């Protein structure tokens, strides 16, 4: 029987790490490790001696992992980013999803593929969640600014909320700008005058 592949996931967010773990275990049996402490990343990896290291492309600690590609001591196993371009398309999909995989030399591509497929699917989900979260945050911030701009107008011109919003909207239409932008300009200008 083949030895279980050892996969190390580098991820400081425990919830994300658990989700990656779960999706890998759905496609096969692996010995999984999670490293969440970036300060002793390389020492931990040397101890674990994994076949594959999975890390978010956006993680700044990726650069520290590059040291692993220098197999200077004879006992160390050479590590490469992905597998030698065996499946360039899969590699490209992985980079687009934001996952990078460091793989020891000689690991067969067919053993790597299901792992990478599962990781890519999971990271694509993360990406989507992140985009949605950012959009929600932006919308929330914009609403706050519009509320403040309305307040300023109501106080300065003695009008009600509805009239204040209509005024903002008309200004935005006249200037060909978004209501949020006009509101922001008003709020920051009012800050100067107060």
């Amino acid at each position, binding site marked *: 029987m083949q030895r279980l592949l050892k996969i190390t996931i580098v991820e400081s967010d425990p919830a994300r790490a658990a989700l990656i773990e779960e999706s890998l275990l759905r496609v096969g049996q692996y010995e999984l490790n999670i490293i969440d402490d*970036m*300060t002793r990343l*390389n020492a931990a990896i040397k101890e674990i001696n994994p076949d594959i290291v999975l890390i978010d*492309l*956006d*993680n*700044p*600690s*990726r*650069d*520290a*992992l*590059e*040291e692993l*590609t*220098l197999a*200077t001591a004879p006992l160390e196993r050479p590590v*490469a*980013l*992905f597998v*030698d*371009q065996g499946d360039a398309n899969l*590699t*490209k999909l992985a*980079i*687009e999803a934001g996952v*990078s995989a460091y793989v020891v030399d000689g690991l067969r591509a067919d053993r790597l593929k299901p792992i990478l497929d599962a990781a890519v699917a999971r990271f694509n989900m993360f990406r989507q969640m992140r985009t949605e979260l950012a959009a929600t945050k932006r919308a929330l911030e914009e609403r706050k600014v519009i509320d403040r701009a309305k307040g300023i107008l109501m106080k300065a011109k003695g009008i009600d909320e509805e009239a204040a919003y209509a005024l903002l909207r008309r200004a935005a239409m006249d200037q060909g700008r978004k209501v949020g932008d006009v509101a922001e300009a008003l709020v920051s200008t009012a800050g100067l005058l107060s």
Partner: protein
Amino acid sequence: MTTTIPVGFVPLIDAGPLIVAVEMGFDRAEGIALDLRRANSWSALRDMVTFGQVTAAQMLSPMPVATALGLGGAGAALAAVSVLSTNGEVVCVSEAMARKLRDAGHAFDFDDAHAAGSALIAAADGPLRIAVPFPFSMHAELLYHWLTALGLPAPSGIEIRTVPPPLMGAALAAGELDACCVGEPWGSMAVERGVGALLLPGSAIWPGVPEKVLGVRADLADSDPEPLSALIRALLHAGQWLNDPRSRVTACEILSGRDYLDVPTEVIDRALSGHMTISARGDVRVVPQFVDFGRFAPQQVHAAWIGGRLAARLGLDRGTSQAAAQATYRTDLHESAVQEIPGYVQEPVALARSFDGQNFTPAPQE
């Protein structure tokens, strides 16, 4: 029609030419539009170039060379077509090391690499633990050259490790590092947080060394040279603008933006003006040429030198490594691009010597 070119950068002072090209419209003047993508690591930038997410990227000057020697990366050949910045690094020591150096009488004059290096070596108990942002970086090359020239045996006397710049401050504070060599604004940010003191600018170790280059995939550079040529010209103008002292206030304002470096303008001004605050006590030292955006033409002698150094350290054949390294610095592409600028005369780049009088002449083969 305007061609949009996605370009990757890491938030550092020397991403300046890329950011300025967009904000001051030097890209549109050449008929292109840069689409800047911020990355958190050099390896991510290299992979984004390799797999086509970006056409070009800011890179550490040894990165195309390392890739050509098979060190890291997924194999696609990279080419350096311009030098984005020269020098701009600092050596920053931990507060504990700074205290030791002060107690031993070191004056922190910030321009004497002999005195600073000797003091650092004398103050070390055990191997010096120094962080760099990437294994293949001018930071690592400068450190190895500086400390071995002063008699520190490498690798036994020096332990150079890779630490992402955002984590360097914490590692200095935790006593895991004696020093780090890093690009601005990270050195000044360590001083701001009270976790480090600046010991030396990179220019005191070796003035005129290429720090960042514009890197592209070699095959793309040859198959589609036109947009790249426009990009090179836009960045040359941006670099000239940045080098003009009259641009400084505006440049600091632009670079400090939330989408770019996202640090106070005052901290950026230190590197651009060369007025460096070297300690939390507020000591200031003036460095006449801290960072230079005007030495724009890639020099093959630099690439060969980097290749020779990497080969010697990693046990590769020096002759073939130097030849492979030299081929990554594409002076031909650079020259054909800048030749199209009316009236532009490329000034020969003077090759300065290191603090101990070395030049870039590749060492004779052993």
